[in-house]
């Protein structure tokens, strides 16, 4: 059963505006960032207008209220992914979350947190479909520590090629960092299965859930991962807030990343000792209003129901794939054909560059993303310089998809491509 999109759309003020000379906005770029429901904007505003003060830093009433609002947001996020409160760290973005873990690993070499020590004898494993955010921090970690970066190749269909996984995850592997859902291909990776392999070899497992947590129900304990990251802005929440989930016993041992106020235990001029997680990883006055906004976004998503969201997107994406495949010269990049996949579809058209296609679609009021989608190595793997990508969310309707299909046809006509 499809969602009542017309009703949902009313909750998102931006759809009241038009683009390109009065055309209704057809927003198919939620994979880059999502739109925000009124509820989220109201929650942020309410924080500023009623409870704004520095959390964890004051004994006055506002500070108490701000602390409560912030910590309640943490609980809300924790419950949403099946974690405990002290396993949730607020960051500014998934990008920061991944960097936090990567830097904590190299920082551990200056502490006695042996579990995290990493050096030239170690390997870090990623995949060829990673977003730059889950690739470059590991390249840099390798540079800092001498560890070796390896990667899981892809099949032509756009899945992880796990045929040699036993030789890729070895006893030298320190960290495996994989995306849960590709932001380009729509592939959903078999995380729980891989987790078993990773842990059998004694490695750590970080999952980039930027494209899964917003679109399906995710349970960190069921996935059995050590770290999981996502961004608020891709799941109806504000910009400027991300999450790092970390298994409690790991966070308890892991050295800090950003240092400063509120993450300390005792401070002397020469040295300092650090608070326990999550405080240890949240230096400075936190992004309180954004955390509160994210909690409101989760409330909204829960009201709609994550299973409903997922089902709805599957409906849309399959409709899109059917329509696109009916157009000659269209090539879908990623797996398709009656399979479990996410609501992202990437494609190319012979003789029309994605940027030009995107431009014509934009002129029709249809917002898609074009280019390498921060997954440049993935583009090389498929021998292309970029794709056009449509990503769906709960506020998209079947008629949005139809507009996309019609838009692609119109573009071909515009550029006189048969």
């Amino acid at each position, binding site marked *: 059963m499809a969602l009542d999109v017309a009703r949902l759309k009313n909750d998102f003020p931006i759809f009241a505006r038009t683009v390109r000379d009065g055309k209704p906005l057809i927003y198919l770029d939620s994979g880059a960032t999502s739109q925000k429901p009124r509820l989220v904007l109201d929650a942020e505003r309410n924080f500023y207008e009623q409870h704004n003060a520095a959390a964890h830093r004051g004994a006055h009433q506002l500070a108490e209220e701000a602390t409560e609002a912030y910590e309640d947001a943490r609980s809300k996020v924790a419950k949403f992914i099946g974690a405990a409160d002290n396993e949730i760290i607020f960051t500014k973005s998934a990008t920061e979350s991944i960097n936090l873990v990567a830097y904590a690993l190299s920082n551990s070499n200056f502490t006695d947190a042996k579990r995290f020590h990493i050096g030239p004898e170690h390997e870090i494993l990623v995949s060829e479909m990673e977003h730059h955010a889950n690739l470059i921090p590991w390249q840099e970690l390798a540079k800092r520590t001498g560890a070796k970066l390896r990667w899981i190749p892809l099949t032509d269909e756009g899945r992880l090629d796990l045929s040699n996984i036993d030789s890729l995850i070895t006893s030298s592997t320190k960290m495996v960092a994989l995306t849960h859902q590709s932001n380009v291909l729509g592939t959903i990776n078999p995380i729980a299965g891989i987790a078993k392999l990773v842990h059998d070899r004694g490695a750590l497992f970080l999952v980039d859930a930027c494209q899964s947590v917003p679109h399906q129900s995710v349970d960190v304990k069921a996935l059995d991962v050590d770290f999981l990251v996502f961004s608020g802005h891709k799941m109806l929440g504000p910009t400027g807030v991300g999450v790092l989930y970390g298994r409690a016993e790991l966070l308890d041992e892991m050295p800090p990343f950003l240092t400063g106020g509120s993450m300390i*235990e005792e401070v002397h001029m020469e040295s300092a000792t650090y608070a326990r997680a999550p405080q240890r990883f949240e230096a400075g006055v936190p992004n309180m209003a954004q955390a509160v906004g994210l909690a409101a976004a989760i409330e909204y998503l829960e009201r709609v129901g994550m299973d409903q969201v997922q089902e709805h997107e599957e409906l849309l994406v399959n409709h899109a794939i059917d329509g696109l495949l009916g157009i000659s010269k269209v090539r879908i990049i990623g797996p398709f054909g009656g399979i479990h996949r996410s609501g992202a579809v990437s494609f190319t058209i012979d003789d029309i560059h994605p940027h030009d296609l995107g431009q014509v679609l934009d002129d029709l009021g249809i917002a898609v993303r074009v280019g390498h989608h921060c997954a440049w190595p993935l583009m090389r793997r498929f021998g292309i310089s970029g794709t056009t990508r449509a990503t769906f969310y709960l506020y998209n309707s079947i008629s949005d998809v139809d507009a996309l299909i019609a838009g692609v046809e119109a573009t071909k006509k515009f550029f006189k491509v048969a």
Partner: protein
Amino acid sequence: MDLQALYQEIILDHYKRPSHRGLHEPFDIEVHHVNPTCGDEITLRLSLDGERITNLSWEGMGCSISQASTSVMTTLVDAKTVDEFSITSDSFLALMHGKGTVVPDEEILEDGVAFSGVAKYPARIKCALLGWMALKDALVQLIDSKSTDAKIISIVPDRSRDER
């Protein structure tokens, strides 16, 4: 008025004339706890005579709530068994985290009931728990290390946030 409820006479009395204050020898363990948000500190010493807490003494720097609460605690648990401490401590923690809805057990908490008002001020709960957490931590360490005979002097973090 909440403020009068917070600062009951008993509290101010213990603040001015604290019990068991001033560090003494001998002791089996010394722990040092801080409240990282405000810098309050407590150093606590004790011995375990079988199951019984003895030689309790402390020194500290902090607000009336943290100092008085430590003082009250020492009067309650000195010469008591570890199990008795657990019961008292659980009762005090429940009171602190009860948001003002928990009725304190006077039988168990005695002067400790004076801290009922703290529960309404989340930022002060940590103050009231500073000494309690220090003692709890000291006992855990002491019991853990019963095999070794060396004196333990340790600086450990304030765990009271976990109790939130």
